[in-house]
């Protein structure tokens, strides 16, 4: 596979400008340049995105005609997205390929920042052959009748637990909480029986943006009685701004913090929260971490918190619902998109197709720790890694964030609500603030109370 794919496209005109270089004298300034903007993430010590891009470029048959410019933005998730939006407003800054969280993609597509890929997709063999792409993942980049990105990762969420801690707490290594109450009791038992061990960790707070909303709060909220309609009423197509479910989710967060079942505020509300949690898990100083299926990437060779035994020491459990009627997971992912103002869309898309060739893509998805969006059966080692099976199984019943252009803004207020409930306000107060904020954004006519 791979390598020669781009030769099958008829988009050759995009490279015409580079023709003077053909004489072989010098590359000169005639080469077309494509700029790729991304955010490297924190799971790995090395910048695996850069590694993937460099390999893709080195193996590309258009390498001699096109210059590759890598624009790495090393910032917290939410800051990265804001910077990206500012970049995409300007043709000279927007670059040609951007790394987008799919929750933001809908909103950025509505803003006109992203190019529709409709004209390019017919030439993308992998996209259309019915077997290369995992069909369900395509929906993440679909908005208003068009695709705005090529999905490059997906994920599920659950509880990463340290079995040694569970054992020491007297819960037993096979402990599996069946409801919120059981989860809280488990945390209390860890607190009681294990000195210097933090029972529970989750991503929370304004600074952590979408991570706090989705990896933390929504994993709790979607497990309430309102389930899939707890955030956005899918029948009425309205945002839920006040409900018993939201209040209960707030109360759950408040209980965790009030009873001292979590880590220090300063570490949990910090943008480095995930790093603290991984390090404490490794040291046996943390029992339960509500996190995403990419967490093993932190511990594998080359990860930020290498830990050879993590496969035996940890378990990845489903997050129980409030009442104990089952479990819940949320699924999201990232995508590569092309800015609307890019002057090199065709050649950028050709490069993007190369990035999705298995041997290039492998570098990305292996280090990133997420689940692949394309068929990677030729790389079975990817699925032999610990917890990949658990993560994929969870995906079967996964819930998704509302596909609504306001979600990304509402999400910022969800993150705020999680922080309010944990720190300064009670469950009701945090919900009232949320209601006022969301109503202000989506308009009262688009809100509903349950």
């Amino acid at each position, binding site marked *: 596979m791979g390598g020669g794919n781009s030769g099958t496209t008829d988009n050759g005109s995009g490279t015409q400008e580079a023709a003077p270089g053909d004489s072989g004298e010098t590359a000169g300034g005639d080469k077309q340049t494509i700029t790729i903007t991304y955010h490297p993430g924190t799971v790995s010590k090395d910048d695996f995105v850069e590694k993937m891009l460099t390999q893709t470029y080195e193996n590309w048959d258009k390498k001699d005609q096109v210059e590759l410019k890598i624009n790495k933005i090393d910032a917290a998730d939410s800051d990265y997205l804001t910077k990206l939006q500012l970049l995409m407003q300007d043709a000279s800054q927007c670059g040609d390929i951007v790394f987008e969280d799919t929750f933001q993609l809908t*909103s950025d597509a509505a803003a006109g920042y992203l190019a529709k890929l409709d004209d390019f997709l017919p030439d993308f063999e992998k996209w259309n052959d019915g077997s290369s792409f995992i069909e369900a993942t395509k929906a993440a980049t679909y908005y208003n009748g068009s695709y705005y990105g090529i999905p490059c990762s997906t994920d599920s969420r659950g509880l990463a637990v340290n079995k040694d801690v569970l054992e020491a707490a007297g819960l037993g290594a096979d402990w599996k909480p069946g409801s919120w109450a059981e989860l809280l009791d488990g945390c209390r038992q860890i607190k009681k029986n294990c000195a210097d061990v933090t029972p529970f960790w989750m991503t929370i*707070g304004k600074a952590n943006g979408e991570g706090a909303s989705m990896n933390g709060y929504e994993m709790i909220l979607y497990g309430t009685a309102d389930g899939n309609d707890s955030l956005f009423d899918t029948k009425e197509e309205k945002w839920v701004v006040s409900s018993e479910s939201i209040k209960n989710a707030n109360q759950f967060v408040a209980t965790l913090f009030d009873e001292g079942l979590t880590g220090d505020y300063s570490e949990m509300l910090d943008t480095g929260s995930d790093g603290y949690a991984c390090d404490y898990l490794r040291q046996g100083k943390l029992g339960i971490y509500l996190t995403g299926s990419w967490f093993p990437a932190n511990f594998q060779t080359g990860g930020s918190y290498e830990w050879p035994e993590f496969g035996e020491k940890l378990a990845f459990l489903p997050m129980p619902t409030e009442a104990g009627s089952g479990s819940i997971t949320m699924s999201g992912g990232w995508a590569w998109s092309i800015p609307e103002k890019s002057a090199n869309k065709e050649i950028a898309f050709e490069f993007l197709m190369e990035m999705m060739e298995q041997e290039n893509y492998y570098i990305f998805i292996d280090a990133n720790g997420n689940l692949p969006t394309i068929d990677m059966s030729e790389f079975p080692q990817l699925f032999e890694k610990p917890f990949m099976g658990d993560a994929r199984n969870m995906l079967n019943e996964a819930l998704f964030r509302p596909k609504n252009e306001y979600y*990304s803004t509402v999400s910022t207020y969800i993150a705020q609500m999680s922080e309010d409930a944990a*720190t300064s306000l009670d469950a009701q107060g945090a919900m009232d603030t949320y209601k006022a904020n969301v109503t202000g954004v989506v308009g009262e006519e688009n809100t509903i109370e349950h």
Partner: protein
Amino acid sequence: MNKSRKKNRQIYVFMAPALAVMLVFFMLPVAMAIFYSFTNLALTGSKASNLEVIGFANYIKIFKDPAVKDAIVKTLVFTVACVAGQNVLGFAVAYFMQDTKTVFRRIIGPVLLAAWVMPEVVSAICTYSVFTDKGTLNVIIQALGFGKISWLYKYPMLSIILGNIWRGTAYSMMVYQAALDNVPGEVKEASRIDGAGRLQAIGYVELPIIKNTIMTNAMLTTLMTLGSFGFIWIITGGGPGNATTTLPVLMYLKAFKNYDLGYGTAISMVLLLISAVFGIIYTRQSEGD
């Protein structure tokens, strides 16, 4: 007649460069900000692609938004506490530096000045590392046998106020030093001969003489503190919750975190209004003199 017209023209020519700079870099951005505050300007979503003038909607929202009221209160608390702290401390240090020639002047002066000379980011990080859970203050407290206190989460407002007073005192100190140096020695001597004690001399002689300096300095520190953003943002990010969300922080959050640029701009107008009110009070006060 002709001569004076020529002179007038000359004045305008010489003023033109300064006026142009004012216009392009100050008046124009302010005018644009005023305009955007009447729009639905957004960073993302469909609003980002259709800019619409929405009249006073943003301002109506400000009046209804409890977060704005809360932020105004927090801005005033922060400003008043910082201005009072910086001025009182700045005056006290300047006063004691007058007659102590050696140790006090040599050590305290440079130490205070260091805080002021540092870039805002650095002094904010210094403050953060004093108050954070594993910071200097907790190390000292624990060494003395007390339990550690989560300053930035239990007393966030107090922490940023103390940090800002530390950072700003040097400025007030320098201003008051200059003013006190200008108090004529004869007046001080006269008051001493008349039997005034130290406090009486300060209250009835020196303070009234430097009253204008006090007003000016209070005004300048007020304006500097009102607009303080980076310092608070670095230490607490406006949190925990909204405990240190002053108006500049709220403005940034609304514009760049909640993607509502129009509303953020409207909030900045409230800040402008508050600054203007302080400005008018000050101007009136000096006109009165």
